[in-house]
């Protein structure tokens, strides 16, 4: 039985998501005005990453049990 690719992938996206969300909360709001049209992309897309990562992890657990 191989390693389920969803495990490392889920972990990576979950971790990246958490980092982005934390950074989204703590960073200077000015950078979002300067770059991303006023949107806090780190917060928004970080949540997308985290949810996607968690989803992959749930899928991999389901398959095993």
């Amino acid at each position: 039985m191989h390693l389920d690719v969803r495990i490392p992938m889920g972990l990576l996206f979950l971790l990246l998501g958490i980092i982005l969300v934390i950074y989204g909360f703590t960073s200077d709001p000015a950078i979002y005005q300067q770059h991303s049209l006023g949107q806090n992309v780190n917060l928004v897309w970080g949540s997308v990453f985290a949810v996607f990562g968690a989803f992959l992890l749930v899928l991999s657990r389901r398959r095993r049990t």
Partner: protein
Amino acid sequence: MPLPVLAAAAGGAREVILHLAAVDYVILGLYFLFVISIGWVLRKYLKTSTDFFESGRSLPAWVCALGFIGANLGAQEVIGMAASGAKYGIATSHFYWVGAIPAMVFVGVFMMPFYYGSKARSVPEYLKLRFDEKTRIFNALSFAVMTVFSSGISMHALALLLNSILHVDYNLCILVSSLIVLIYIVTGGLTSAIYNEVLQFFLIVLGLLPLVLLGLKDIGGWSGLMHQLQGYSAAQGMPGAWSHSWAYMGNEKSNPMGIEWFGLVMGLGFVLSFGYWCTDFLVVQRAMAAKDMSAARRTPILAAVPKMLFPALVILPGMLAVALLQRGGHGFSLPPAADGTPNYNMVVPAMLSQYFPNGMLGVGLTALMASFMSGMAGNVTAFNTVWTYDLYQGHLNPAASDAHLVTVGRITTVVGLLISVACAYAARQYNNIMDMLQLVFGFVNAPLFAIFLLGMFWRRATGHGAFFGLLLGTLSAMLFHGLSIPVGETAWIKGGWIAPHWVFHSSMAQNFWMAIFAFSGCFLGTALISLATAPNKTDDQLRGLVYSLTEKIRDHDTPWYGRPAVLGVVVLAGAVALNIIFW
């Protein structure tokens, strides 16, 4: 073609520089850590040469499909297609909806039964089983040289780009990127490469998607984009050409690609596309790693689904860049290329620097790195398999034990990467030699699909027919190149070195027509020589290798919606719909 509007707009900024913060380095570092760990964890599952070179033929269809498309989603795709999106607009989607999807469905439905069913371990090995040893050697050698060269080009492009946008040392980039790829392939073999390609696929898609969304929002949505492109294409003297895929393909003067529909459909859509997707071991290897025949057949068809949607991800940034420059103001600019026109290869980095704040910037950069590394790793895994099975075991040491082959595969990975590094430095020193090599590969590859088509669907095709037909096809390509030239070029590496007899509107058109010519030469040559020579294989030997002698696969145990033919039809219908929507 001069682009005065953009050149003026881009005059201000000389280069694109990404200013990274600690968070970006953390993200990049985390990615590297995961890439290497995947190889490390997989090493304990790796026991036989089948595990190392073919992933033990054990992977589910969706993993193979994402690996299949991930290996193809190299930097050439991300950087190059964005550049083409800027140069040609929506018509760039022909590389997908015409130049990829039909061939991907074809290889899944019709060809995979022979690749997977024959138990050949590589594409050259299939040629040996179907034709003879010399055809295999010809294909294996040219393929091996081509893969290390491509991997070197990928490495060079990455180092050049990072050097330019981050001011990182060129040598350091080469060292780090080749070491990472080396570690994860030597430890985990093909499985590790495929797993990383799946990871890279999601990183590239999720990393670049917000870039497109922000760009679209900035320009005022789809209608805003179309509005700017209308203005831009009118200024180029081809009104409407940037916002339609087919409407301006009637003749080569009315579209920026400089090609007419017939050359496009036959050259790109048939010869080049089928030649790549159906015979290039780099992609076919991913499907051959599938756990069973059904999964192997579904691999390219499932891969066609994301492939069909990629234009939104990789072409749209280029179109957005042109539209943003056309609109002016707001600070988006591209650095000029050597000839003073905007450097479209910098579209993606320039958009990253424009729209991504630190944090997402790290993600975007990671996605870019992932695309370079997947291109490199794909080439290296295909190279080590062809070298070890077709050249080493086939000729140098037929009696080699299985464990010995794994060792050879690992050593080959190291050697292959070393040669790639050498190629990268050669590309840095001598641009012309690289152009020349690329040209030679073009000559060799263009006719290739003809012998597979005849081999798989005509039992009478013989070994001599295939080998000499291939030579004839290569010769036809050279002859065509020597007699044709793109308009405004001087005769030599661009063509016309015999006599510039046929003048094409663009080098793309010349290239597509060269492919048509080479294919026809090879097809006719193989057919005629086959008829003139005695068959070198008995019907029994050809069972499982040729359509008429192979038992048809009945998919009765698969539900109807999982059958390759049904999936293929659905995917094709999707491609047709997209062509019509963006007509």
